[in-house]
């Protein structure tokens, strides 16, 4: 027999980008402990719809922790209290009957609110478009093992590539900096031979785009890597700093 609980939810409601929002309080009964956090919001939305109210808008897609859609600050922490967990994989068994839970969208100039908990993360796409790619010759497919890659580099590239671009790093940062994201994107390419051709230009352009989007600067609080649901290491930021300095003093 699974337990059910009654929760008090305080949720940021904002009709559109241009209208001011506020925190609204909802009481939700019959929350099953095996529900995910997003399923709990589904139950709330069903109830709101039935009552003739506007349901809470929130981003979601895969609901298995890999798409990077869910983006909500739960009780002052991006994706909630559990480390290495997206909001969709957070389960209600984390909470107790009678708990009050606050839910807000990511807060950053570069992530403007579209509605309620949904923010526009196009700034991340533009950072990737500015340099997060490799140029590959067309023609005959290269043999699978033609380019050997050391275990250490392969592991590190894979760890950086685990970034799902959710934006929790920005949401967690006291400065709303996107250094962890940009560092992970630079890092997963620079660790591989395919990423060497555009190495210098990539980091310069991506950092320039990051600044242009209005993200803050890193002051080494290390909150980003703690909040990252994919546990991207703070190494990404140190790597980005090194790559940036290298790009300033080399030509390749």
């Amino acid at each position, binding site marked *: 027999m699974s337990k059910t609980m009654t929760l008090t939810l305080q949720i940021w409601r904002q009709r559109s980008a241009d209208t001011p929002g506020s925190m609204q309080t909802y009481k939700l009964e019959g929350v099953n402990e095996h529900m995910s956090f997003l399923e709990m919001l589904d139950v709330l939305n069903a109830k709101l719809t039935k009552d003739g109210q506007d349901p809470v808008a929130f981003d979601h897609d895969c609901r298995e922790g890999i798409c990077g859609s869910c983006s909500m600050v739960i009780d002052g922490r991006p994706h909630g209290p559990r480390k290495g967990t997206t909001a969709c994989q957070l389960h209600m068994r984390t909470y107790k009957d009678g708990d009050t839970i606050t839910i807000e969208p990511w807060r950053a100039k570069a992530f403007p609110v579209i509605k309620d908990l949904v923010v526009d993360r196009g700034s991340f796409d533009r950072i990737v478009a500015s340099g997060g790619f490799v140029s590959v010759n067309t023609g005959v497919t290269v043999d699978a093992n033609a380019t050997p890659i050391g275990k250490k580099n392969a592991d590190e590239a894979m760890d950086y590539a685990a970034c799902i671009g959710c934006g929790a790093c920005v949401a967690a940062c006291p400065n709303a900096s996107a250094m962890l994201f940009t560092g992970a994107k630079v890092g997963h390419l620079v660790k591989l031979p395919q990423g060497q051709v555009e190495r210098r230009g990539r980091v310069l*352009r991506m950092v320039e785009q990051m*600044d242009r989007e*209005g993200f803050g600067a890193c002051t*080494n*609080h290390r*909150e980003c890597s*703690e*909040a990252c649901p994919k546990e991207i290491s703070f190494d990404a930021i140190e790597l980005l700093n090194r790559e940036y300095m290298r790009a300033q003093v080399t030509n390749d």
Partner: protein
Amino acid sequence: MTDAKRPGRLSTLARSSIGAKIVMATTGVILVGFLVVHMLGNLQIYLGPDTMNHYAQTLKGTPALLWGVRAVLLVSLVLHVLAAVRLKGLNNAARPQAYAVPRRYRVTSSAARFMLLSGLVVLAFIVYHLLHFTVGATNPADFNLHEVLDVATQTWVRNDNEQLIAKLPPELVRHDVYSMFVRGFQNPLIAGTYIVAQLLLAMHLSHAVASMLHTLGLSKGTAERERNINIGRAVAAVIVLGNLSFPIAVQAGLVHL
């Protein structure tokens, strides 16, 4: 890949947020290096007036070094403050709407979050400290103290006769830094001011040293980063404990005229 779309070098460095961080970190390295040397030099107060005053005399006797170092420090400090103001502006602008519910931080420290505050207090202290001990503007009576070389015995003797000192050749007169130092810290208000400023400096450095190592990208992996954080705290502790010992030693009467 052509170079056509690559941004230029210095222009990107000057404009970018990482460029400002690099300025912050490299000037920080210079300033922390100076703090270590400054503290070690002042430890000579425990070796008595002759050692301390000879040290001061040596520094003033090599004006090229003295003014060279002062110029580098002044430029570093100005750039450090300008970079801090620029970064703070960027960071404040990056989150125009604050969270409605206070965030729960996981690893950051109060020292890291209040760097601007501790930095401003330290800056105000630096201005006061220079007026006090370098320019002699705040306590001129303690500042204008000299020793005169007794040629017969080759010893330095305190002399308050300003007319005599004005007439003597410079190689026979030296600034009595030891007495200035002791008389300065015998005033409880001044000693207290220095102690409070050093506590704020400790707060600033406990984040600053590790932060500049991170910004310069010097740690690869969590273990190295934890080590650098501990190095940062140790450097901060050594500098500030050394500096704190001076007003405390004078107030306790361990160092006296």
